[in-house]
């Protein structure tokens, strides 16, 4: 890591409120860590201790979300307490599928119902296709990648407590491999492209006089989701995948 970079990164002694002041998107991450609001002027370390979150993991995610050119190397991943990674990823998926996507759909349908049937149907169809695609993408990860991470982390825990590892090899093949990183990337990029296309369609090409305020709001909502999913994809591609590979090599 370049020296200037490590000086810019957030540290555990900083106030959590200062970190959020620097990047307000981090406020959206707090529920994924199980950290409630109302943390006062406590440092990141204090807030994490109070909520039983490993501070190095929290900082890792906050730094990836904030500094576009920051990606941790394998060495720092190996020394970070990664136990909350799975919960974090699951919470992220929940937030997207159960909160953001339905919220955006409500507003898009509201707009679609007022811009004339032809345009309305096109818009609804595009969004329905997108929502199905991204939900399937998440489900695939939950079905293949997450159980693999859980199993490997279990193996780590047992190894540390001196238990014998059982059935490890057998289960590994049964649940399939993590898909290749490049294939995953493309799919993430494709999803992000579609979200951005959706914003272009909504504010450039649909009739503009219908519900302008709601239209602008939904464009902001979509752009926010798109930025969030880009970082989420980065975490899966550059943290989850190499971490799982590393665990796998260790347990062979």
């Amino acid at each position, binding site marked *: 890591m370049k020296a200037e970079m490590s000086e810019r990164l957030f540290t555990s002694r900083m106030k959590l409120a200062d970190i959020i002041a620097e990047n307000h998107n981090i406020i959206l991450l707090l529920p994924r860590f199980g950290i409630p609001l109302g943390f006062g002027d406590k440092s990141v370390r204090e807030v994490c201790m109070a909520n039983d979150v490993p501070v190095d993991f929290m900082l890792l995610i906050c730094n990836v979300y904030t500094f576009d050119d920051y990606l941790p190397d394998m060495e720092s991943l190996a020394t970070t307490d990664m136990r909350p990674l799975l919960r974090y990823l699951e919470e992220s998926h929940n937030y997207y599928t159960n909160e953001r996507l339905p919220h955006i759909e409500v507003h898009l349908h509201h707009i679609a119902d007022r811009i004339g049937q032809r*345009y309305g149907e*096109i*818009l609804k169809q*595009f969004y329905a*296709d*997108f929502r199905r695609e991204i939900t399937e993408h998440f489900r695939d990860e939950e079905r293949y990648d997450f159980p693999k991470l859980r199993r490997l982390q279990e193996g780590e825990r047992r190894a540390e407590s001196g238990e014998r590892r059982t059935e490890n090899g057998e289960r590994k093949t049964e649940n399939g491999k993590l898909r290749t990183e490049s294939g995953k990337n493309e799919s993430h990029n*494709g999803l992000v*492209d*579609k979200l*951005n*296309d*959706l914003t*272009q*369609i909504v504010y*450039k*090409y*649909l009739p503009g006089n219908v519900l302008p305020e709601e239209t602008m709001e939904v464009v902001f909502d979509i752009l926010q989701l798109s930025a969030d999913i880009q970082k989420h994809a980065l975490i899966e591609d550059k943290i989850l995948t190499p971490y799982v590979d590393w665990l796998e090599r260790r347990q062979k």
Partner: protein
Amino acid sequence: MKPLISVLIAEPSEIICEGLKALLQTSGKYNILAPLHDATSVTERLAAARPDLLIINPSLLTSPRQQLAAIVQTRPTMPVMALVYQYIESSTLALFQHSIDIRCTYSTLISQMQSAMESGERRTENEDRKAENYELSERETDVLVLVAKGLSSKEIADKLNISVHTVNSHRKNITHKTGIKSVAGLAVYAMIHNLM
């Protein structure tokens, strides 16, 4: 390897021209064109030689404002640097975004050249962002409709009797003009615009 940056020097003194040329050549990044010793034919040379960077002694410019405007018009994205070693009217110097003081060190010279080039690159990007020709051409529209119908570049090339390379360059222009990347998004664009 990056292509060499071609530099045109307009400077009356042959000694200074040759000195600057020798210094810049040691960096291995620059291709120094045959220098001009006066500014009478500078725009013609720019049009013909199309350099990436112009270093000019402001004392060569008899009416700086007009002459610089003509230079910028000829090569809009090319950075222009003033080569300064004698007294120059501050109003003239203010017309230049970049300058080289002849007393500077070699490393300052190189870093100033680089920052001038970077600002030129930014200007090129801004050029790209200008709203010119955002309407799709007839050919681009043909390609768009076929993309929207789900055909691959290869299939489109066969259908329109053009090369895959040409199809891809049309696709790139379509995305550039509409801001839409995905096939599904392009299909929506085509439907909204009654193209299919």
